[in-house]
C-alpha cells in the first residue's frame, strides 16, 4: 500500500524544523520525504492545514496485563495509543506479577501482538518481583526482547545491589531506568512540601528527595559505567545534578511526564485524587524549570506515564487513594498546550516524544527519514475540544484533564504504513 501525504506540515525532529512537503509511505516505510508528485495508484491524503509527525514513542506505559486487566488490557491500551498518535508503547514491568522472567515477558509480548494495533516493546524488572533483593536475568530478558530494566516507582534501596545490577547491566549494554527518590524522605508522602501541602494538611516530601535519589544513582553510574535513564525528573533542584553528570560525560538521560509539564500542585485543589501522581505534582517554579530543561534538551524525554486506576481506587480520601493518571490519549493534546503557550516548538516536542526515546532504546522509529518505518501521526494542532473522560478508549478514565479545554486532535495514525486510527478517507 502506497500513501501520498500531500501538502503536509512536516514536523521533523531530527532536522529540528518544520516545512511544507509531500511524504510517501510505501511498503511500511517512508519512501520519500520531499516528493514532487503522487506515485501512480497511491492513496492520496490531502494534509492541508494538518501536521504530519513521527508517531509518538511513549516510554513508560502501564498496561494491566498481567494482573489488572479490568484497569487496562492490551486491546484498550492499544486503542487509546492509536487514538492518541502513540505508535510505540514502551510498557512498564510494574504489573502483578512483575515482568521479571523471560516467561512472563514472552506472555505479555504475545498478548500484545494479538491485541494492540500499535507497536509494543516491554521493559523488564531490574530486581525479582521488584523487591530490591535479587537481580533479574537481565541477559535472558534482553534476548526475549526487553528494551530496558526498571523497578517502576520502587527504589532499589540496597545500594550494593543497585551497584551490582548497574554493573551487570553495563556489561550487557542494557539500559537501566531509575526512579530518583530518597525512599526515607518520601515515605508516606502524597504531596510536595510547601504552602499548599501545609494548608491542605497532607503528608509531604521535600523536592530535595528527588535530587538525593538522582545524586546517588549518578554516583553509581560513575562507579559502574552503566547506561542510565531517570524515569521522571520533576523538580528544578535536580537539574544541576543532571547537568553535571552530562558534562562529565556519563551516559545519563532523563524523562518527565506530560502532567508535570502542564499541571502543578495547586491543581489538586480540594483533594482531587485524579491529580494524585507519583512523584506528586510540584510547584509552578518546578514546572517552569522543567519546561525550560526540555527546551534546552537537558531533559530529553516526555512521556505520559500512563497509569490506569479504576474508579474505586480513586474514590478515597486523598492520602488513601491510588496514584497515577492515564495519558496515552491525552499526551498529544496536553503537549499542544506547551506549543500554544510558545514554550516549545513542535519539532522540540517531537524530539522529546518520539526521536529521543526511540534513539535511547535503539529503535528505528521516531524519525521522518527515507527508509525509516512509516509510523506517523496526522494531527490538527489547533482543533479545540473539551475533554470528556468517558470518551477515552482506556478502560480506566482517571485523567486529570477531564473537562479541560484542549487544542490538538489526532486525525489519523499509521503504524508501518497501515492506518490504525482515523477515518478511511482522512
Amino acid at each position, binding site marked *: 500500500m502506497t500513501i501520498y501525504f500531500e501538502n503536509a506540515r512536516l514536523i521533523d525532529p531530527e532536522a529540528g524544523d518544520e516545512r511544507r512537503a509531500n511524504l510517501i509511505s510505501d511498503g511500511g516505510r517512508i519512501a520519500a520525504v520531499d516528493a514532487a508528485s503522487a506515485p501512480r495508484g497511491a492513496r492520496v491524503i490531502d494534509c492541508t492545514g494538518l501536521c504530519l509527525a513521527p508517531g509518538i514513542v511513549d516510554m513508560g506505559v502501564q498496561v494491566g496485563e498481567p494482573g489488572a486487566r479490568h484497569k487496562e488490557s492490551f486491546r484498550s491500551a492499544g486503542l487509546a495509543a492509536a487514538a492518541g498518535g502513540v505508535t510505540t508503547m514502551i510498557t512498564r514491568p510494574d504489573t502483578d506479577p512483575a515482568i521479571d522472567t523471560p516467561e512472563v515477558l514472552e506472555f505479555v509480548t504475545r498478548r500484545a501482538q494479538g491485541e494492540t494495533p500499535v507497536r509494543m516493546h516491554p521493559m523488564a524488572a531490574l530486581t525479582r518481583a521488584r523487591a530490591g533483593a535479587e537481580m533479574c536475568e537481565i541477559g535472558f530478558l534482553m534476548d526475549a526482547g526487553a528494551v530496558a530494566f526498571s523497578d517502576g516507582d520502587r527504589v532499589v534501596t540496597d545500594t550494593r545491589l543497585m551497584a551490582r545490577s548497574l554493573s551487570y547491566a553495563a556489561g550487557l549494554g542494557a539500559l537501566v531506568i531509575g526512579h530518583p527518590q530518597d525512599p526515607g524522605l518520601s515515605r508516606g508522602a502524597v504531596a510536595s*512540601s*510547601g*504552602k*499548599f*501541602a*501545609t*494548608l*491542605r*494538611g*497532607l503528608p*509531604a516530601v*521535600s523536592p530535595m528527595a528527588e535530587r538525593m535519589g538522582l545524586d546517588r544513582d549518578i554516583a553509581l553510574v560513575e562507579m559502574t559505567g552503566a547506561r542510565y535513564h531517570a524515569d521522571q525528573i520533576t523538580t528544578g533542584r535536580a537539574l544541576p545534578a543532571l547537568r553535571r553528570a552530562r558534562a562529565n560525560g556519563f551516559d545519563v538521560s532523563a524523562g518527565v511526564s506530560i502532567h508535570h509539564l502542564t499541571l502543578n500542585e495547586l491543581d489538586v485543589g*480540594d*483533594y482531587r485524587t485524579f491529580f494524585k501522581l507519583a512523584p506528586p505534582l510540584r510547584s509552578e517554579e518546578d514546572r517552569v524549570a522543567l519546561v525550560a530543561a526540555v527546551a534546552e534538551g537537558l531533559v530529553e524525554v516526555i512521556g505520559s506515564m500512563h497509569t490506569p486506576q479504576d474508579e*474505586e481506587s480513586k*474514590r*478515597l*480520601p*486523598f*492520602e*488513601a*487513594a491510588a496514584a497515577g493518571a492515564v495519558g496515552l490519549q491525552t499526551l498529544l493534546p496536553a503537549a499542544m498546550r506547551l506549543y500554544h503557550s510558545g514554550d516549545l516548538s513542535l519539532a522540540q516536542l517531537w524530539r522529546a516524544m518520539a526521536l529521543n526515546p526511540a534513539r535511547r532504546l535503539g529503535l528505528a522509529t521516531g524519525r521522518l527519514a527515507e527508509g525509516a518505518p512509516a509510523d506517523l501521526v496526522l494531527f490538527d494542532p489547533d482543533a479545540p475540544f473539551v475533554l470528556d473522560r468517558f470518551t477515552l478508549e482506556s478502560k480506566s478514565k482517571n485523567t486529570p484533564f477531564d473537562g479541560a479545554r484542549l487544542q490538538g486532535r489526532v486525525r489519523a495514525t499509521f503504524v508501518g504504513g497501515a492506518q490504525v486510527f482515523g477515518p478511511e478517507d482522512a
Partner: protein
Amino acid sequence: MTFHAQHLLGIEHLAPAGITALLDRADRYVAFNRGGAKHADSLAGMTQINMFFEPSTRTQASFELAGKRLGADVMSMAMQASSLTKGETLIDTAMTLNAMHPDLLVVRHPNSGAVDLLAQKVTCAVLNAGDGRHEHPTQALLDALTIRRAKGRLHRLTVAICGDIAHSRVARSNIWLLGKMENRIRLVGPPTLMPAAAAELGVEVTDDMRAGLADADVVMMLRLQRERMDGGFVPSEREYYHRFGLDADKLAHAAPDAIVMHPGPMNRGIEIDGTLADDINRSVIQDQVEMGVAVRMAAMELLAENLRAARAEAAHG
C-alpha cells in the same frame, strides 16, 4: 445574616462577617446554657448523626450535647477505621446514611480532606469535627469566642501558637481564623514539628519560646502526641518540656494579662505545667470547653436554617 454555607468544612472559606455572625449567636447560647432550662427547639424534628472515625471524647460529647439542647434527635456512631477499608467505608457509609435522610452529619476522620469528600456525596449539612491535619473549624471558633470574651476583642491581638504545629489541624484552623480577623500570629515550636512552609502563612515563626511569647496576649498550647516524643521528632519528653513546655517562667515573657489556652486533652508536665493549667487567673481552658457547646449549637443552628431555606426553595422552585 451573613452565613450562607451548606456545610462547615473549614475556616478557609469563611468570611470575617460570617465568623462574627456565628460568634454573636454563640454568645447568646453561652448565657442560655448557664440558665436553668437548657432546652430549645430550633432543631426539633431534625436528625443529627455523629460519625467519628477517630476516637474522641470531648468533641463528640460537645456536639452531642449541643444537638440535644436544640432539640435534635442525636445518634453517635463510633466507626471502626481499619487502614485498608476506611475509604470504602467512608463513602459507602455516607451514601447509606444519606438514604436515611439525616439533616446534620458531624464527621471526624484521620485523613485530611476526607470530610470534604464525604460532603460531596450527601444532601444534608456536614460539620467537620476534624480531618487529619487539615482543619478543625469548631475548635478555632470556640477558641475565637473564648478570646473575644476574655479580651473584649478579636483583632489586633498577638497570639502565640506553640508546640506541634506540623500535625495540628487546630493550628491550621486557628491560623486561618485569627489571620482573617487581623491578628498577629506567632508559631513557636521545634523545627521538626513546624510545617515546611510555615513562614509563607502570614505568620512569624520561631523555635524560641521566650521570643515567641514576648508580649503575647494569648498563648495557645497544642497537644504533643506521645508517639512523637520517642526521638523521631524531639529527643525526649524532658527536653521538650524544658525547651517548649509552658511554665510560669516562660509565661512571664508574655503580656501581664495574657491568657493560656489548650484544646485538650492536656499532657501535664510535657507541654504545660499542671499548676499553670489550673490557674484560674491565667488559664481559660475550662472556658474553652464551655464555649465549645455554645459554638456548636450556633453552627448547627445556622446550617439548619440554611438547609431549611434551601429545601423550601427547592420545593417551590
